[in-house]
C-alpha cells in the first residue's frame, strides 16, 4: 500500500540522512527499528509530508506523496515525537479543533467523533483538563486520538513509547494493536519489544539505509544457530569483548549474561540459544558497523 522507491535525503550541511531507501509497506503494523541517528525520524517526516526528500518516490495507493502532499494529508494520521501545540487548551477542545482542521464541518459529527475517540483512548474522565497537565502517557494517548480523526488509512507514530512507564506503555501498545488491523500503521522506535509485540513486518535502519526487512519470525529464523550465550564475571567481560562479537550483555543474579554472534560454535563454554528479535537487531547493527 505504501511504496518508497530510492528515497534519499541530504541536509544542507551535507549529512545524508536517507540513502536510497526502498520499502513496500502493507496494511497492518509495520515496525521501523534503528538506533538514534539512523534516519528513522527523517523517513517518518518525509512520509508525513513534513519534508521533501532530495530524490526518490513515495506512493500511497494512487497518491504521489511528494507531488501531492495535500492529498495525502486528507488520509494521514501523524503522532510526532513532540506533540506540543496549544498546551493551555483542554483535551476536548483541542480534539474538536483538530477535527475542524481535518474537515469535519458538522458540529454533530464532530461531537460524536471527539467523544468516541476520547472514550477509545481512555481520556474521557480528563477531557476538560488542559493538555499541559497531562502525563507522558496521557499525552501519547491524546496524540493517537488526534491521529485517528477522520479515519486515516495511513498512521505514522514516531517513538511513541519513549519515556512511558511500563503500565502506560502496555496500555498504549494495546491501543495501537487495536487500530492497526485495517490501515497502514508505521511505528518508528528504538525499543525492540514494541516491534516484537505488535508488528507483522519490520525493517532495521542504520546510517540512513535499510539493513534488514521482513517479518520478525522470518528474521529470527535467519539468525538461528548464530547466537551463543555465556554467563561471565564482570572481570572477564573485557576479554570476551575482545575475542568475540558481543551483541548484548545483561546482568542476572550479579553476573553478566553475554550474547555473541558467531557462524560456528565459539567453544569456551558458550552454548547456542534461541535468537530473539533483540539478537536480530543487535546483529544487524554489528554487521552494519563492520561494513562501515
Amino acid at each position, binding site marked *: 500500500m505504501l511504496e518508497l522507491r530510492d528515497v534519499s535525503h541530504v541536509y544542507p550541511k551535507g549529512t545524508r540522512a536517507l540513502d536510497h531507501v526502498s520499502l513496500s509497506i502493507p496494511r497492518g503494523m509495520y515496525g521501523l527499528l534503528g538506533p538514534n541517528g539512523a534516519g528513522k525520524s527523517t523517513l517518518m517526516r518525509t512520509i508525513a509530508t513534513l519534508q521533501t526528500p532530495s530524490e526518490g518516490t513515495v506512493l500511497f*495507493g*494512487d497518491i504521489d506523496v511528494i507531488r501531492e*502532499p495535500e492529498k495525502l494529508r*486528507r488520509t494521514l494520521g501523524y503522532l510526532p515525537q513532540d506533540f506540543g*501545540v496549544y498546551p493551555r487548551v483542554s483535551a476536548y477542545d483541542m480534539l474538536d*479543533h483538530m477535527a*475542524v482542521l*481535518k474537515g469535519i*464541518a458538522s458540529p454533530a459529527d464532530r461531537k460524536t467523533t471527539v467523544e468516541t475517540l476520547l472514550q477509545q483512548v481512555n481520556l474521557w474522565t480528563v477531557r476538560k483538563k488542559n493538555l499541559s497537565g497531562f502525563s507522558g502517557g496521557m499525552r501519547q494517548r491524546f496524540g493517537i486520538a488526534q491521529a485517528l480523526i477522520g479515519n486515516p*488509512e495511513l498512521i505514522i507514530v514516531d517513538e511513541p513509547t519513549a519515556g512511558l512507564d511500563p503500565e502506560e506503555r502496555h496500555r498504549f501498545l494495546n491501543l495501537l494493536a487495536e487500530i492497526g488491523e485495517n490501515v497502514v500503521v508505521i511505528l518508528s522506535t528504538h525499543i525492540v519489544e514494541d516491534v516484537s509485540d505488535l508488528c507483522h513486518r519490520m525493517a532495521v535502519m542504520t546510517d540512513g539505509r535499510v539493513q534488514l526487512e521482513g517479518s520478525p519470525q522470518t528474521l529470527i529464523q535467519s539468525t538461528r544457530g548464530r547466537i551463543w550465550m555465556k554467563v561471565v564475571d564482570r572481570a572477564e567481560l573485557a576479554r570476551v569483548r575482545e575475542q568475540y562479537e558481543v551483541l548484548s550483555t545483561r546482568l542476572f543474579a550479579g553476573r553478566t549474561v553475554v550474547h555473541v554472534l558467531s557462524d560456528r560454535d565459539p567453544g569456551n563454554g558458550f552454548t547456542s540459544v534461541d535468537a530473539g528479535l533483540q539478537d536480530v537487531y543487535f546483529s544487524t547493527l554489528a554487521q552494519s558497523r563492520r561494513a562501515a
Partner: protein
Amino acid sequence: MTKAMPEVTLHATPRWSDVVLEQVRVAGHGLRREAIVAIAVLGVGTAMVGSEIVAGGPGFDSNETLPTALVAFFFPFLLWRHDKRFAPSFLWTLPVDRRRLAAARVFAGFVWLMVAVASFAAWLLTLGLVAGAPLAHTILRIPVVATVGAYLFGSALVLGLRHPIRWLLGGSGVLFLLGIVGDALSRPDDSEWAYIPGAHAFFEEVHQAMELWLKLPDSAQWAMTTFLWLGAGLAALWAAVTRHKERRRH
C-alpha cells in the same frame, strides 16, 4: 513496471471560514491568562482614578497619546509564542494550506486585539463620563490606526523572521547609531556637506516636500498617512506570510 495502485479514501478539507473561526477560538483560549492580567490592571486603574475623583481631583487631566500601538506591536509575540513558526510542525500535516493557516492566525490575533482596544476604550469613556472629563482626555487618546499598523508590522516581524527579537534589537541599535551620525551631519550649511555633490540640492528637495505636506489639510494628512502605514504593514505581512508557502520538489 508500475502496478495499478488501489485508490485511497480521502476525507473532506476544512472550509476556510471554519479555519478562521477555529483560529479565533483557539487564540482566545490561549490568551485567557493575559486577559485576566489586563482586567486586573484595569481594576487597579479604576481604583486609582476613582479615589482621585472622590478626593475632588480631575481624574483625567492628560491628553497625551496612550501607548496602545506599542502594546499592539508586541501582541503578535505573545500570540505566536508557543508555535513552531519555521520548524516542521505537527500542524503542517493537516489538510490546510500553511499560508492560509498563518494568515488566519494573524486575523484571529487582530480580532482579539480589537476586542481589547474596544474594551479599553469603553472603560476609558465610562470613567471619563463619571469624572466629567473632556473627550480629548479619554478615547481620543487611543491611536487606532497606529495600533492596527503596529500590529501588522509586529505580525510581519514574527511571521517573516526566524529570530525577530534579535532583528528588532539589531535594527534598533542601527537606528540609534544612524540617529547619532545623522544628528552630527544634519547641518546642510556646514562645510563638510560641500564635499558631497548634490547634498544641498537634496536637502532643498526634502525641505520643499515638507512644506507641501504641511500645507495639506489635517484630514488629507491623516488619510495619506493611514493609507501609507496600513499599506506598508499589509505588504510586509503578505511578504512574511509568503515565507510559509510550501515548497516541493518537482
